[in-house]
């Protein structure tokens, strides 16, 4: 009862500042995220260390390049890339920062203007901002020359960091509708693909820039970017050092203007998001917006065989298109399978044997078949009562893979033969590829039965926590066994070469194709009774996460 008198005080005259509250919220979220498991703490600490090392390295590298003729362009380009990163990050990692989601604050009596300042301050905490500060500081030091440039540089560094952070915030707020909807989450899963492609781009760019005088390639890009905020602030530092004060002021002003515009846009979208109905309400009021029964689809579906095989294949194909995780796995397999021969031929050291990547990557799609079903596997499990059912299920899945893999392997091997050559090796490599594909289908079926693991449907992870070793064992062991299984074909090839029977190398194609079919068939036969026996165990393994 005594506490009662303390509670009902009238609303304080001046509302306390929100900023410390949000800063504490951010820190608590970070801390609690780490408290969940030691593994996560270790991962976080490791990523911090790596991030800091990388930032320090980049900073040191930039400072070491001070005085280089092209350093201005490089610094401007780096700033541009970092800004781009900040802009797209909330789209691909929407769950990365919970304070980024303004819809969580909707129920609180908060004004957008005070909210913006607090949120901005809170988002300056984290590895991302530290990394950005390091990089921007490095860039500024690298291009600054003289006391005026130093002053401009401090201003520029602050402006760039603020622009980056508020850009991320504004983009996140503007796209929160998209990100909290199902379609948005689907898109986020595909984020990994963009990162993989981006990494390839960086890889190629780095090798180009690494050549002597490679930096001069940056000049035209730098010329454009130097007027794009926030990179214009960095070029302003250089201009100030060279005495071009007018250009320096213009560069700084452009960035400041961009910051003001961003904050204004952010405040506007924040107000809209916090005062209008969210997607769940809109969706409930919506109509049957689904796909009407597509006549074309039905026509193609009619070509599929009856019984269990057709429906399973149709479901697999629908999932390959509609399920983001499955789509991503297919895109990765096809993309990387193509990329390996293409990249190696661009680098000039390609052989026709790089086209094995096509059958290797597509064959690996057979691994963890039931994990791809997630816990919906119970629907499959409840219709499998004999090894024959399991065999038909596995065979239908292998058929679906082969339906894509065989034409794809054909195209890649033929393309590699055409561009890298020689054509004389085409039949041999094609035959070996088909044998490898069959071997991987066989081991994949067996691994699906013996080492199933969950694929979490949200986020970028492909293995549920605690099942990483199963996944590695399944894939790695499978590849070793798959290679062993194709070794008879390899032995035959070697023998034909060593015995100087080059005229007979063409038989590798029919032999390889037949061998592939037989070994895949054998694998399915061996795996099927194990699947039928282990249904509850498989279901349990694929239902985690």
């Amino acid at each position, binding site marked *: 009862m005594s506490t009662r008198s303390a509670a*009902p005080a009238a609303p304080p005259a001046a509302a306390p500042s929100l900023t410390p509250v949000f800063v504490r919220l951010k820190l608590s979220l970070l801390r609690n995220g780490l408290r969940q498991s030691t593994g996560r703490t270790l991962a976080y600490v490791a990523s911090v260390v790596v991030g800091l090392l990388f930032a320090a390295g980049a900073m040191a590298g930039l400072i070491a390049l001070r005085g280089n003729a092209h350093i201005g362009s490089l610094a401007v380009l780096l700033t541009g890339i970092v800004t781009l990163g900040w802009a797209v990050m909330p789209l691909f990692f929407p769950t990365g920062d919970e304070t980024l989601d303004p819809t969580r604050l909707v129920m609180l009596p908060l004004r957008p203007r005070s909210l913006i300042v607090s949120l901005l301050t809170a988002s300056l905490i984290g590895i991302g901002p530290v990394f950005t500060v390091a990089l921007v500081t490095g860039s500024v030091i690298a291009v600054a020359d003289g006391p005026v440039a130093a002053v401009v540089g401090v201003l520029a560094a602050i402006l760039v960091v603020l622009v980056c952070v508020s850009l991320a915030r504004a983009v996140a707020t503007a796209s929160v509708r998209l990100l909290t909807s199902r379609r948005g989450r689907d898109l986020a899963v595909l984020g990994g693909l963009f990162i993989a492609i981006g990494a390839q781009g960086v890889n190629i760019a780095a090798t180009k820039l690494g050549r002597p005088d490679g930096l001069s390639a940056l000049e035209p890009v730098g010329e454009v970017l130097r007027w794009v905020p926030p990179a214009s602030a960095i070029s302003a530092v250089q201009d100030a050092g060279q005495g071009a004060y007018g250009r320096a002021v213009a560069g700084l002003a452009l960035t400041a203007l961009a910051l003001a515009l961003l904050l204004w846009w952010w405040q506007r979208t924040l107000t809209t998001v916090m005062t209008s109905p969210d997607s769940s309400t809109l*969706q409930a009021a919506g109509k*049957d917006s689904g796909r009407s029964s597509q006549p074309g689809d039905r026509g193609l579906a009619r070509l599929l065989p009856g019984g269990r095989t057709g429906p399973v294949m149709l479901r697999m194909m629908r999932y390959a298109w509609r399920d983001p995780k499955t789509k991503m796995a297919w895109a990765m397999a096809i993309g990387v399978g193509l990329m390996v021969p293409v990249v190696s031929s661009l680098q000039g050291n390609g052989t026709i044997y790089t086209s094995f990547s096509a059958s290797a990557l597509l064959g690996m799609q057979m691994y963890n078949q039931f994990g791809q079903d997630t816990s*919906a596997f119970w*629907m499959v499990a409840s219709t499998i009562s004999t090894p024959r059912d399991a065999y038909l299920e596995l065979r239908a899945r292998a058929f679906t893979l082969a339906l894509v893999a065989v034409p794809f392997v054909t195209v890649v091997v033929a393309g590699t033969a055409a561009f890298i050559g020689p054509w004389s090796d085409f039949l041999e490599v094609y035959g070996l590829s088909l044998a490898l594909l069959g071997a991987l289908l066989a081991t994949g079926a067996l691994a699906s039965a013996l080492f199933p693991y969950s694929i979490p449907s949200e986020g970028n992870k492909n293995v549920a926590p605690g099942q990483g070793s199963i996944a590695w064992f399944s894939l790695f062991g499978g590849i070793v066994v798959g290679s062993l299984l194709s070794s008879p074909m390899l032995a035959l090839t070697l023998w034909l070469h060593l015995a100087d029977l080059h005229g007979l190398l063409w038989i590798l194609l029919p032999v390889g194709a037949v061998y592939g079919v037989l070994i895949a068939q054998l694998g399915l036969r061996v795996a099927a009774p194990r699947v039928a026996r282990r*249904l509850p165990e498989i279901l349990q393994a694929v239902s985690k996460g």
Partner: protein
Amino acid sequence: MANEPEHIGQRSESAPPENGAATSQGEPQGASRGDAVQGGATAAGGGAAAGPPAVRIQGLWKKFGDQIAVNGIDLTLPAGRFIGLVGPNGAGKTTTLSMVTGLLRPDAGVVEIGGHDVWRDPVAVKSRIGVLPEGLRLFERLSGRELLGYMGRLRGLPGDEVDKRAGQLLDVLDLAGSQNKLVVDYSTGMRKKIGLAAALLHNPEILFLDEPFEGVDPVSAQTIRGVLERYTGSGATVIFSSHVMELVESLCDWVAVMAGGRIRADGPIAQVRGDAPSLQNAFLELVGAQGRGAGQNLDWLGGGAR
């Protein structure tokens, strides 16, 4: 399947369940259905009241780590009844149903469905049962109609028959308007209904439903109820888990009460209720949670100064 489930469900909650009549009805049908029916594609509904019990469980036992989820259950459930498996959260209902339906391997014990061992004779069992599990997903990237088409064909039914049945089920369950929408965009009630449709598609003798009314709005709940009552009316068996006693009392003619991984009571509903004023009271007494009211510590709640 006709399209008017609405005529059912108007009786008062305390009246004795109509389905009691189903036991006597079920007998001739059960004889025609018998033991030898394989494949589950038979058109007639009905359970074998005179034959073996719907479910016979002996010494069923399951442990997860240190926690014993199901602690030696012996239970016989008669055919042709509407049976409720009730218990508080964490009582082991889901674990039990998963083991009975062959989705989870027990550590020990025997489960027979219609006289067939679930683990030794899956062919006879899987075609006879329909399952709607709780906490497991559906193939959500299919539309409602595609999901039913897929499941029916996986069950070995001819394609035309599957499409006909799917259309009727979608109509009766009030899903026809959303049949082309992906299941991932369905609400909880719609998911339960499409799951129920998938479980009924092959006209099973025994239907196992884990929390079919959980998170379902009253309209969908009434639809589900109507379909289930029609289904048991034809002599089939429904076994469903729930912790809503009023629902169980109004729907079921047989209950099994579970708590702490054991069966505390089972039998016809009147017998389990005993002298207690309602099943709710009888249940609270059985699980030993009677008289745990709100304490004195919340005296500041409501009224007076804030």
